[in-house]
């Protein structure tokens, strides 16, 4: 069964409030330096994480193999209107996994 990214975003906030967002994406993050059964396992990591709000980028991370498996990030953003957060994780092959969350801002 596929593992889905976990995202924690408050469902509502006050206008101008600074909220904390937490994300966890299940992924082995193969460094390319690990040997299995005598052979080097090729590198395959998520190298980019982007968080957008109502289409505009609010946070992003450029990642390297030194990020642990199941990459976890927590960060802050200020909200001034209701809308939708869109999160995307892109791997070395260019494959992207997405998740979204809505927030009501009063």
């Amino acid at each position, binding site marked *: 069964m596929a593992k889905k990214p976990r995202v924690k975003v408050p469902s509502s906030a006050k206008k101008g409030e*600074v*909220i904390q967002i937490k994300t966890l994406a299940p992924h082995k993050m193969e*460094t390319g*330096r*690990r*040997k*299995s059964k005598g052979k080097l396992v090729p590198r395959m990591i998520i190298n980019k994480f982007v968080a957008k709000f109502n289409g505009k*980028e*609010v*946070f*992003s*991370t*450029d*990642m*390297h*193999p*030194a*990020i*642990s*498996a*199941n*990459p*976890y*990030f*927590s*960060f*802050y*953003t*200020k909200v001034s209107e209701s809308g939708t957060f869109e999160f995307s994780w892109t791997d070395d092959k260019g494959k992207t996994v997405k998740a979204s969350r809505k927030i009501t801002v009063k």
Partner: protein
Amino acid sequence: MAKSNIQIARRDVLRAAGLGAVAVAASSVLPSESFATPAKADALLKKLTGGAAAKSGRVTIKLPEIAENGRTVPLSVTVDSPMTSKDYVKAIHVLSEGNPTPAVASFNLSASSGKAAVSTRIRLGKTQNVIAAAVMNDGSVYVAKKKIKVTIGGCGG
């Protein structure tokens, strides 16, 4: 649950040494490669920050003193900044002085980030310094360094 008084027997010491040798042999990390060095980390830092003179202060690194396990080490970086459109953190770069390569992650923030504080989990291959550099919107750079002990765990890691 009583514990018996342990006399460290010669046999136990030899056993531990044997464990150590076996553990190193069984390790799946490639041996004797060129690892990152403080100089390599410094070169990458200059490249990422545009070469501005690194100032101290404003950046705080939160790392455990000893890594529970080098494969998953919790890291937090906080930068003291009002995060207004006139004065905000544009990016936080994390580098390693002792991993196979110095790059760890770069976090891109904006004036609407509200707070310059990021957390993640990183891999550290050995005892070393972790570097965090904040690049401000005016191009100025603040750098902090923190040492963390990373060793092989009890039974082969």
